[in-house]
């Protein structure tokens, strides 16, 4: 049996198993459904279903590799794009390790130049060091550190959505994406009708784009000045929104960072470190920023810039602003891992472990020839590292290695 056939048979078992429960999205009949055919590799789109059972029947028959539904509500979801009749769209966020710097440096990812076949590990370069082409095939890997980095971003996002935007936790649906990241869907009547431009403003808020703590006059005056040594007379931070976040972030950074750590962030004025107690009290607490000696407007603005980077959340900007977006369906398998997109309560973000709680294939083992795999966790145990060896692995681990192009079924 080929590796692909093996995975297909397991996906088929999953969708045909009567105990497999796929949660129905809200207003299911107003959503477009889509799925990628496992073998044929084409996307079936513009499908509409009356209920979840009808859709589950299609999944059993067709066994797709990936399943999606629209975040959008349509009058006629099964018609072509122009004729669907847009009603509204959930506000969705996607945080994916592909788009953010992670603490592992993606050392487990492998890239191969499509043109000259030169290959390397880590972050894919802009262009091939040998032939300058910019087309690569990339073998990614969902490591714990990648997922941890996206978890940190997701936590910041959820904090903004609840505290600043005031969404109740039951309006937030938080998911492990099935690969290496998280999705947050906001289902709330008031956000449904927001247009792309309004959603863009929400994105800018979350990512910190366009933050301006000075009013226009002060900003212009400062821009025209020599900048060095200008006192922070008109520098003030309020108690709401980003002002509040900046103050919390500054306090957090200044109380924990060493002098060298601050310098590595480009904060070279040592008074930030030396006078941190005064800053915490007089500036952050009492809003008297101009009374801290040796810290000018320019330094405060630099500090703001760094804290903004630390406190903003790194989301995929295109997903949130797209009002016709398809998103992976909760409770279905991810074609790159065999893991499930899985929902959990927002407060469970720290506790949720994808490699035990998003595992679909809990029974059986398979013998595989592993070409190259780092050490990894699956189903509560740790496996690898492997290099050109035949091993017997639990089904879930074997499937992930095969889907990640790291292993073949062996006899």
């Amino acid at each position, binding site marked *: 049996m080929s590796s692909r056939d093996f995975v297909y048979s397991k996906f088929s078992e999953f969708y045909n198993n009567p105990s497999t429960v796929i949660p129905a999205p809200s207003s299911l009949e107003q959503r477009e459904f889509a799925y990628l055919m496992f073998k044929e590799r084409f996307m079936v789109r513009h499908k509409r279903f009356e209920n979840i059972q009808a859709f589950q029947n299609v999944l059993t028959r067709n066994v797709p590799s990936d399943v999606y539904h629209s975040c959008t509500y349509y009058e006629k979801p099964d018609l072509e794009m122009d004729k669907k009749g847009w009603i509204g769209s959930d506000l969705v966020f996607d945080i994916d390790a592909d788009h953010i710097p992670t603490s592992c440096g993606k050392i487990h990812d492998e890239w191969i130049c499509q043109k000259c076949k030169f290959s390397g590990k880590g972050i894919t370069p802009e262009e091939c060091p040998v032939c300058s082409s910019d*087309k690569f095939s990339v073998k990614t890997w969902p490591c714990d550190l990648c997922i941890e980095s996206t978890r940190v971003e997701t936590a910041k996002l959820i904090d903004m959505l609840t505290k600043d935007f005031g969404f109740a936790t039951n309006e937030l649906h938080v998911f492990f994406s099935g690969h290496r990241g998280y999705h947050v869907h906001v289902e709330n009547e*008031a956000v449904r009708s927001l247009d792309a*431009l309004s959603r863009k403003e929400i994105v800018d808020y979350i*990512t910190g784009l366009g933050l*301006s703590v000075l009013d226009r006059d002060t900003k212009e005056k400062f821009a025209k000045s020599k900048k060095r040594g200008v006192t922070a007379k008109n520098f003030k931070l309020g108690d*709401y929104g980003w002002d509040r976040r900046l103050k919390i972030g500054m306090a957090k950074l200044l109380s924990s960072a060493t002098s060298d750590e601050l310098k590595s962030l480009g904060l070279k004025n040592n008074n930030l470190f030396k006078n941190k107690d005064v800053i915490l009290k007089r500036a952050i607490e009492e809003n008297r920023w101009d009374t801290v000696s040796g810290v000018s407007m320019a330094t405060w603005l630099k500090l703001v810039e760094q804290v903004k980077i630390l406190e903003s959340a790194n989301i995929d900007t295109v997903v949130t602003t797209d009002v016709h977006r398809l998103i992976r369906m909760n409770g279905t398998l991810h074609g790159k891992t065999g893991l499930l997109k899985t929902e959990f309560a927002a407060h469970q973000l720290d506790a949720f472990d994808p490699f035990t709680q998003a595992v679909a294939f809990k029974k059986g083992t398979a013998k595989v020839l592993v070409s190259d795999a780092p050490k990894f966790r699956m189903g509560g145990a740790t496996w690898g590292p492997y290099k050109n060896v035949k091993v017997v692995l639990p089904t879930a681990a074997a499937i992930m290695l095969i889907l990640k192009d790291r292993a073949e079924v062996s006899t």
Partner: protein
Amino acid sequence: MMDRNLSTVSASFTKSDLAKYPFLKESARYFSPIDLQIEDLISPDMHQILDRAMERVTLAITNFTVRPSNTEKHVIKDLQKEIFSFPVAIMLVAATNNSLIKKRYALAEAKQATSEMSLEPKDLLLKIAFDFGWKITLSPPDSKYEFTLYFTSFLQNASHFHAAKWKLINRKLSEGNVYLNKHDVERLLQEEIKQRIEKRLNNITLDQYPPEISEKAEELKKLAAENLGQGETDFPKIIIQEAFPPCINTLYAAASKNHHLPHMGRFALTTFLVNIGMSAESVTELFKSFSDYNERLTRYQVEHIAGERGSGTKYTCPQCSILQTHNVCKNRDDFCKRIYHPLKYYKNKTDILSQNQSETPKENSDNKNS
């Protein structure tokens, strides 16, 4: 038609309020679009109203207002006429079928309303905001901010403004509410009013107007041609690459060198080129070098964007702030600081280049932005 039984409608605005803000839903107590027959507009007892309607639009075009400056300060004498002249003015503007006049009129009405609102008490502003379905509350008297507005109502209007202070990120946002002062609310309402009037103007699609209305519409069109110009959508007939904004130059260079472009980059480049007059065919040609190039699909997408397929709408290029959000805005230059749209950059730059060309010999400014 003006004697409808009003007893069932509970009044929250006075008639004098409605004369100042005739776009409010409650004005329909004094006229109903259903009752308004086109023939009524030209009946003899209506000519005063028609004259006042004509005055509204004329002033909008010439003075950016809808009320003569000699109107005794904010006192309108004939309330009924004033209220009723508004839907008639709407009809006149719609009859011009000219988008420039429509925009100008909607903005002039909105500006007029804003100048009235600045003199009103806060609770009247609140009532006007409710008319637009805003989720807004008045703050207690001792608080620093006068209003709290739910962020979705804020965004629907503020997202159209360009100044940094209107970005949500620069606002006091807490628990879903944005804290605002009265002046902010007036400015946001102005946008809301403008949008409502534009929508009304665009919803009227009549094939034919009575000759009297058409005649007046013709007069207005002439007036607009003298006062408003032709709009700013005319680009030079040839493509002038040295007038491309830096973001487009970056994308264009990447595309020419066979580099991968993210979706938003490709969309921005295509819409930009199609809008300044490049043929769908030439744009398709540009994308030919991509490894994921599929001629049939690319041609389809480009023609779709150019409005030659599907719904027939030509897509416009995303504005600067959208390109910033998606990290497509690159190498901003001084010229960028004064504009909000890549097409506007191109328009202004080509204007300057053609002026320079007619005055002095053309300098070679290639690679200026690279």
